[in-house]
Structures are given as C-alpha cells and as structure tokens.
C-alpha cells in the first residue's frame, strides 16, 4: 500500500510529465513560429497597411488615402497588361515545364539499366545557377550571332529578334525551363518507384501493360503528387519575377512584364510603395482563389 506522500509524488511527476508533454513541442515550434511571423506575416501586414497610404519616405508611412491606390491601380493599363502577361506565363509554364517532367519520369520508371545516369542527366541543369543559365540563353537568343537564329537561317527562314519581339519574348523566357526536368523528375520518379510491387504485378497479370499501365496504374497512384506540383507550379508561375527581370526587365514595351515585376518596378523606379503594395495584395488574393478552385475541383473528382 502506497503512502500518501508517495501518491502525491507520483501525481506530481504525472503532472510534470503532462505539462512537459504539452509544452515541449510548443517550445520547439516557437522559434519557427516567431520567425515565420516576423519575417513573413509581419511583412505582409506591412504591405497591406502601405497599400492604404501615399507613401512618404521622410515621414513614413505618409498620408492615409484609403482605397485610392487600388482605384489608381485598376485604372492603370500597365497593370492589366502585366496580368495578361502573367497568365500567358502560367499557360506556357504549365504546357512546357509542368507536363514534360511527368513524361520524363514515367519513362525513367520503365527502364532500369540507365536510370541512374538519366536521373543525373535531368538534375544537372537544375543545379546550374539561374543567372548563368539566363546569360547563356541570352546569347542563344541574340538576334545577330545567337544559335537560335543560326538554326532559323539554316532552315531558310528570316531571323527573329526573339527577346526584342513582343510576340516571342515570353516564350523565349520560359522555354529554357524545358531542358531537363530538374527536381520534378526525381520527385515523380520517387513516387513511381514507391508504388507497391503488388499493384504493379496484379495489373500485369490482368494484362495491363505498356501505355495502359502508365495511364491506369502509374498515373492514378502518383496523382496526389501531380496535384501538389500543379498547385505549386501555378503559385510559382503567378509569382514569376526572376526570369523576366534577368532576361529583359520587362522589355519590349512591357511585353514581358509579369505582375511581380510590375510590383517591383513600382517599388524601385516609381518609389510608389502604396501602389506596389496594392498590386501585391491583389496578386495574393488571386493566387488564393485559384489555389482554392484547384483543390476544390480535385476533391470533387476524388469523391
């Protein structure tokens, strides 16, 4: 029979254990939560706040103007041109850079002998720094001596000004991403290789082989990853800044200005932090709505 003091001690230990169990995970989470709040959410709230001000650098944040900056933004034709460009980028990225890694991974999953070699082959372009890649591609697209026009002329066509041509510039910026699937190929390949062997064998016994196996067995089993990648691709495409900035900085005549680049220009050229922030807020809302629709559609399909 336990004495009352030992019962109290046991209860105390139990209590301490419960408190520790409840508190320790939070202590581990705290640095991450704090840094996320300070470095991410705080800047977002600042951005939201600035969108209601006529920013004054000497007396920040300046004069409160309510929704005036949003009105100014919606009347700005460059803003709408930037949106049109952004959606063209989205379509190009999905068409050129989203589907191809899936196809590459599907075929890689079918081979065994050179799988390691091709995996490295696909990943290598992704580890070359973006700036170097862009510099190389700017030479390729150079109208006078670039390889692209060399090929065009070789086939008897007239040279194209590529990056200086409003009709071609967006394609020229996105196309280099098609070379090598990068990390996406490896992600898809890992998911394919993770499919249960039982499932694969059962499908083969049922006569489901080749392309049918890809469509009816492999793709449905990696659908979750495809969806995540699709959502991420959409978000990344809508926030495209580095590529148009480094390739053309929006030229010619704003034909390659994505909405993030439009925002950046309003911050750094016009110093209109209010209008830039208002544009950033609209971008955030659109990304949220599109992502919501994507997830909703996927759920309906699953049900």
């Amino acid at each position: 029979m336990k004495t009352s003091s030992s019962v109290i001690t046991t209860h105390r230990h139990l209590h301490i254990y419960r408190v520790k169990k409840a508190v320790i995970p939070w202590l581990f989470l705290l640095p991450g939560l704090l840094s996320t709040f300070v470095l991410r959410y705080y800047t977002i709230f600042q951005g939201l706040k600035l969108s209601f001000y006529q920013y004054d650098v000497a007396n920040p944040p300046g004069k409160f103007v309510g929704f005036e900056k949003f009105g100014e933004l919606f009347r700005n034709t460059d803003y709408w041109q930037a949106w049109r460009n952004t959606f063209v980028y989205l379509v190009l990225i999905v068409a050129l850079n989203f589907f191809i890694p899936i196809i590459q991974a599907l075929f890689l999953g079918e081979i065994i002998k050179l799988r390691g070699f091709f995996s490295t082959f696909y990943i290598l372009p992704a580890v070359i720094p973006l700036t170097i890649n862009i510099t190389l591609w700017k030479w390729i697209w150079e109208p006078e001596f670039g390889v692209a026009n060399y090929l065009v002329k070789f086939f008897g066509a007239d040279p194209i000004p590529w990056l200086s041509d409003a009709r071609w510039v967006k394609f020229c910026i996105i196309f280099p991403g098609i070379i090598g699937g990068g990390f996406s190929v490896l992600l898809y390949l890992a998911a394919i290789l993770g499919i249960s062997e039982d499932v694969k064998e059962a499908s083969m016994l049922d006569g489901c082989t080749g392309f049918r196996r890809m469509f009816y067995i492999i793709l449905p089993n990696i659908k979750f990853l495809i969806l995540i990648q699709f959502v991420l691709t959409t978000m990344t495409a809508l926030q495209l800044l580095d590529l148009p900035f480094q390739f053309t900085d929006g030229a010619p005549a704003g034909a390659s200005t994505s909405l993030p680049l439009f925002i950046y220009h309003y911050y750094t050229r016009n110093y209109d932090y209010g209008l830039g922030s208002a544009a950033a807020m609209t971008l955030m809302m659109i990304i949220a709505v599109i992502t919501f629709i994507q997830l909703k559609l996927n759920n309906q399909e699953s049900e």
Partner: protein
Amino acid sequence: MCKRFLSIILSAALCTGLLSGCGGSGTAESAGSTAAAQTSAASASAPAAEPEKDITITLWQQAANTAEATLAMQQSFQKDNPHIKLNIVETPDNGTDAIIAAIAAGNAPAAIQMGYPTVMSYIYRNACLPIDDFIAKTPDFSNFEKTQVESFAVNGKHYAVPYDKYVMGFYYNKRLFEEAGVTSTPATWDEFLETAKKLTNPAKQQYGFGLDAIQWGCWHFETWVWGAGGDLTKQNSDGTLTLTFTDPAAIKAAEFYRTLKKEKVIQSDGTKNLEALTKDFAMGKSAIIYDSINAGTLAKFVDAGAKAEEIGYFAFPKGPSGNAYTQAGANAWVLPATSDMDIANAGWTYIMYANSKNELINTLKEQAAKGPLGAAILARTDVKVSDIGEIDAEMQAVMDASNLISKPEFYGKGAVGSFADDMVAKIFGDTNSDITKVFQEYQDKAAKAVEEFNKSVKESKN
C-alpha cells in the same frame, strides 16, 4: 470549408509576402525613430558646429572609386575632424533604389552623391533635406557657381551641393569611322542617320548607334524632342507644370527613333540597357553613343575596354527645327531627409571638406600627373582646370560647343520622369503602336503626379 479557404489565403499570403513586404519592410517600424529624427534635422534653425561630440557617419562609395586623392582626402578629413569617424561601405549595385529603402529604414548614408535626374526625383519624394540653413552658415559656399546651385532649388529651397556640371554629347569610335570611310561627324539628323547606316555592318556584328530607349528612356529622348522644336513639359508663369507629351516635336522625335530602328542602324537586341550599350561601344561593337562629355565618362569607356586614343566627340546635330540642343545637368551631394541633427551636421562637414578648394586641386593634380586632364565644368568658381595642367583639347572643344547649346532637363522631371521613361520604352518596343495615342495615354497616367506637383508649388507660395 472556411478553414480551408483561410489556410489557402495564408499560404498565398506567404508566397506574395516577400514581394510586397521586402520593399516596405521596416518602413513603418522605423517611422517613429526616423520621422522624429528627420523633424529634428529639418526644423533645425542652424547647424550645430560648436559641440563636437564623437560620431560615426557612413558613406557609400563606389568600389572603383579608390583614387589616391580621395583616399588621401578621407585620411586628412579624419585628422582634421577627429570627432567624426568615417565608415566607408561599398555602394550597393542598385545604389539609387537602395537609398530610398535605406532612408525609409533610417540607415541611409550621411551624404550621398547623385546625378541631376536622381536628385530631382528624390527631392520630389521628400527624400532630401533642405540645406539652406547649412548654406547660410558656410561662407565657402559663395564660391560655388550659382546657376548650378540654383538648378537644385525647388520651391525656393536648396537641396544639393553641386560638384561638377556635365553636358551631353556624342562619343564616336575613330577607328570604325575610318574603316567605314566616314570623314566627318554628322551635323544634322539626316546626316546622323546616313552616318549610322555606313557604320552598321552586320557581318562584323557592328551597329551604328547605341540608342538607349528602355532604361531612363526620356533622359536621351528629350534632347531629340528639343531638336524637333518642342518639349515634353511646360513651366507656366506661376511655376506650375503642364504636360506636352503629345507636342508635334515629341511625335517627330519618336518617329525618328523608329526610323533608326527600321533602318537597323541601332542595336538589334532591343533589351540592352545603358550598361550593355556602354560595353558594346567600349568593345567597338557600336560606333556612336550619347553620354556626358567629361573625363569620368571617358574613363568609364576605357575601363570597359575602349582605347582612349580611338575615341572622338561631337556635339548634338541640328534637328528638323534647324536648331540643336543638348542636355546639361550637374552631379551633386545631398543630405538624406531622415538624418538626425548630428549626422546631418557631420555629413555637411564632410561634403564641404571633400569639395573644398584644396581637395579639388589635389584631385586634379593627381589626374594631371597621369596625363592630359579631361575637360570639366567645375562647380567651384575659384578653381580652373587649365591652371592645374594640360587639358584634352578635343574634348574641351566639343564640351564648350555642347555647353553653348545646353539646357536643363524638362521641367518637372522629378515628378513625371518615370511616366515619360515608360512612354518612350513603349513606342520603341512596340513599333506598331500609335505614337500619339501612346503619348496621350501616358500623359493621362501622369495627371495625378502633375496635380500633386502643382499643389506643392502653390502651397510653397502661400
């Protein structure tokens, strides 16, 4: 569903956060401290010169700007002003953009060197401290040339200490001219076009003229508008601003830009910015470029690979109006608006020291020891370049000729310059667009900025 939507909003917010937050981060946080500091400096009745307490000031300096004279000046400044410690840091790549962010964040350098267009843009955005109180307490300031000083005055307040005046003109590659059989420099726009045609040789990947239309496009464009007999803006008798983007002369200048492009005598890659065009000229890929005629610009081309002996100069050719004009401006020092009183005082002390007669003579002597001095229009009236050493006669002649036809940039550029830049980039990039329509569109876009500019002009008079 609400939870999910909220979570999506939050994740989207995280994604866009950096876009919106980076530029503005820290601005509101610094509002209290910097606004208070700015008020104290701006409202100061006079700079406090007597109590010399220890202070460290930060200066942004180009990495390349390590001329012995500059380093020696900074060392002697430290000796003469032991209470002011200099913290020299390298100017960020995006220097002019970064300064606004630094001012907003309260960590701007104590004194900043900038060119005329940037200074005017900063003044318009309240980023510069008025220096009238400092000027009043500095007798040496009377030795600065008045027209240059006045060019940085807005609504009766002065904002900058000029240190040299620049006039714009054309640089050309003598070797390429010789190879193309061109024996004289162009005197009219038509001759300019013909010359550029002769100097264009696709087989050698060589083009006639490096035309900057996409970066600070209106900076060069306005000169062509003047030559066509008009201007981009008008200063009214009461000091207010009226935009004249659709002036027939502006349309004519835009058409000439398109002719240069159509005739393929300019760079084929329309995305090249000024830096890329400078490199092309220095490497002999282009034969002509428009820039400020002075030793500093020549040094920039030589640093980028050009041979000094191959570079020649000519003044702006006459336009359809029968006249030629070129642009003049000045490089200047400013005090950022948010400096506190002690920092502003120390910054002013440094500016006046760096621009003192002795230091200017030392700098020129150092340059003279290396060869003929570049032509220069100094801001100080008590120093003459010709007294120090031999001057590059060819450069001096073109600079003098350009100076005679020079005028300051269009009125109100600080307020509406970015709209004009975009307008020029638009008609240059999209050659199918209707020039008049585009110019009208950008004039409408700038209406709000004009309204605010005119409001500030009227307020300053009341």
